[in-house]
């Protein structure tokens, strides 16, 4: 077991890869009472095309999410939620484009709950009947999201920015697609992607490292690894599919969505540093302390605002969504920011200070630490122990060089306006 000191944070993280490839990351906090356990796989909504035994397979969209729901079905009929409840422990699961993970969190019966979590995720039980039953529940889940205007805007942006990527499709799939799912599809995905070298265990909080490691080994060391199928993640073109679009929604205030697609290959920078720089650029340009926010606020253009980066293959996509009284004017203001863009030293140094302070604050809280480590595990498949140093070492010269290399005009814009009543 490798001990990795998280620099400047007075805590240590322990990492080990079992022989079968399972990745284990443990971060004990002695002064906390609660714990959080995640057991996950790098199987998410991205994967619907793959080759098994030389045969090309296409499973229905939304299958990773469907499988997540069905994981809670056990051969002995016992409900995992009930098991965790007995010690007042909460359980949940979630699916993204890149992963599915199962979590439990509480402050009692750590070892029993850890063992059970690993066991139940290793025991799929699908029948024609229980698969059918889930379709009604998931259909309602999909409809719940479909009714949300922000969600509609995001989906249209995704459809327009990508040509072939699975990111064009909702993580949950569609009612039509999930209706096709059979128990055979689920077993096929489970058997191929819930395999040790494609999975990880992450634990943060109050627990004993040796005890945790022993339980994980007892439960998972003997699980045989299976070679991953050949996954087909469609190549993407650099261009966006559609540059401008307009949709109608149940809104009283219009919305503007924008997605910038950036090919990172020519930028020649390692993933972590690149992510830090890109985030820094957009935070300085559009964050709460930016001149942009001040300006659009004073012009009464902006109501709420949301931004996020996403990675797909060699692309980084920057999403921005806002509700606004004037989509055209807001777009002009955004464009203005990208004109002759130079990052100022004052803003750059201030944001570095803020980010470092936030890394320290995060350690106060189990949930925040979990989400930070989890992000690392998903994005880089490892923990980044020296983030504060990395932030400190970011250079103004470098960021301004980078800014010059990026084409911010390669983008897709969607406006959402009120339906006529």
């Amino acid at each position, binding site marked *: 077991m490798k001990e990795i000191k998280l620099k400047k944070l007075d805590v240590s993280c322990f990492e080990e890869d079992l022989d079968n490839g399972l990745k284990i990351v443990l971060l004990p906090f002695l002064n906390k009472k609660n714990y959080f356990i995640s057991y996950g796989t790098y199987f998410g909504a991205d994967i619907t095309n793959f080759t098994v035994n030389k045969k090309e397979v296409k499973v229905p969209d939304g299958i990773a999410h469907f499988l997540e729901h069905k994981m809670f079905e056990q051969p002995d009929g016992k409900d995992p939620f009930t098991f965790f409840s007995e010690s007042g422990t909460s359980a949940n699961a979630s699916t993204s484009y890149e992963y599915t993970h199962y979590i439990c969190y509480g402050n009692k019966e750590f070892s029993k709950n850890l063992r059970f979590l690993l066991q139940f995720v290793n025991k799929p039980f699908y029948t024609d009947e229980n698969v059918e039953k889930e379709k009604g529940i998931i259909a309602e889940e999909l409809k719940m999201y479909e009714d949300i205007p922000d969600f509609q805007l995001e989906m249209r942006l995704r459809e327009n920015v990508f040509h072939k990527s699975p990111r064009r499709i909702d993580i949950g799939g569609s009612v039509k697609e999930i209706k096709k799912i059979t128990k055979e599809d689920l077993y096929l995905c489970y058997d191929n992607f819930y395999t040790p070298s494609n999975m990880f265990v992450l634990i943060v909080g109050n627990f004993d490292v040796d005890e945790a490691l022993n339980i994980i080994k007892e439960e998972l060391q003997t699980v045989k690894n299976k070679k991953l199928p050949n996954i087909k993640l469609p190549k993407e073109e650099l261009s966006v599919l559609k540059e401008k679009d307009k949709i109608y929604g149940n809104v009283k205030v219009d919305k503007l969505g924008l997605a910038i697609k950036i090919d990172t290959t020519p930028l020649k920078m390692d993933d972590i540093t690149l992510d830090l720089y890109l985030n820094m650029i957009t935070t300085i340009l559009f964050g709460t302390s930016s001149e942009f926010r001040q300006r659009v606020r004073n012009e009464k253009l902006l109501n709420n605002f949301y931004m996020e980066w996403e990675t797909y293959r060699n692309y980084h996509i920057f999403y921005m969504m806002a509700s606004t009284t004037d989509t055209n004017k807001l777009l002009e203001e955004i464009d203005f920011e990208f004109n002759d863009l130079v990052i100022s030293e004052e803003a750059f140094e201030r944001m570095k200070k803020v980010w470092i302070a936030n890394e*320290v604050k995060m350690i106060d809280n189990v949930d925040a630490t979990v989400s930070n480590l989890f992000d690392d595990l998903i994005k880089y498949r490892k923990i980044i122990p020296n983030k504060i140093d990395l932030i400190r070492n970011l250079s103004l010269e470098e960021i301004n060089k980078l800014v010059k290399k990026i084409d911010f005009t390669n983008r897709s814009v969607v406006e959402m306006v009120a339906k006529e009543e």
Partner: protein
Amino acid sequence: MEYIKKDLGSYNLHIIKTDKFKTITVRVVFHSPIVKEEITLRNILCDMFMQSSKNYDSKRKLTIKAQDLYATTIQTTNNRLGNYIMTNFYLTALNDKYTEEGNFAESIKFLSEVIFNPDVENEKFKRDKLDIVKTIALNNINSVKEDASNYSLMRMAESYSKDSPISYRMIGYLDDLEKINEENLYDYYLKMLEKDFVDIFVVGDIKEEEITSLIKQNFKFKTVKRKKVSYIIDSPVRKRRLFAKETIDNSQSKIAICNVTTDLTPYERYYPLTLYNVILGGGSDSKLFKNVREENSLCYTISSVTNKLDNLLIIMAGIDKISYKKCLELIESNMLDMKKGKFSEKDIKIAKEYYVTALDEMLESESNIIDNYLMMEILNTDDIETKREKMQNVSKKDIIKVAKKVKMDTVFCLEGVKDEGN
């Protein structure tokens, strides 16, 4: 953890010493009986605090100042608690150990600046800034239907009783918004400073003497103390159940049910009712989750919550409109089962475990610690150890007795009428 309460004349200072956190959290709570026509004013006032102050005359300058204090954060919120409106200012700052000497004191000074030194001239807020804040409020009020769940809860409460504070929309009202100007907002600000009850909480690795003098220096009120009205709302029950409906151009329908609890003793309100709710619809192990979702595949979300100070228990679900009748029947039969005692000792044990876990969990979060002491202050609730003990002793009989006091009153359906096949 050590708790010290100090009466500083016009307000109480609550000091909670713990070395668990690297940050120090301060919460200043203004509370006063809620008045419907003042909700919008309060919202606008809260946003004005965060828009600018005398020395930091733009939102950007305020933000940059907070960032310079090692990412200190200040937030304001307004929420209703029974008959009261609570206006909270939260400050979270890193302990000086992790920043530099004097950073926390400077942060407190900054919070004081935000509250006591607003961007005012000639006893008026500034017109241009007020316009910005009002426009945002206007857009938010107009967008209220975008969150269908929340909207259905609002409409349910309005159907239940137009006059009770329960039905007040915390997002505010267009009529009231129009009436707000630079002068009357300033008058209202002065009134809040003078008439509201104030409590200040500080949690973290702090020294009693130091923090007391720091707070005294920075927070000076001339509050006029009055007699408090009760926090708890006495909610009436109608003789015949009310069914209300509204349509929306969505694919999913939302069902929101208002159940009234009558004649609860304080013990029943804080203990057996809590267990009743956990068993009925509190989590993914509850009766409603299992029977309506898992067994009958009727929904993805279904849950119940207790609004203890309102004497209400609310049930909500997102369903297909064709399942409305069946869903309602299932909810009723599950509530009837609770009355008949059709739940096991194991169910009770599990519900108690949840509660105890939540109590322990509370100690891991500064804001939850403050909530606990705030409730003890204003409602005289028990301390953590008493809570733990009393909850362990709740019997099945107690829960059944409470179940009989829960009456379904108003059923609201926000019917999604969007064409199928999309």
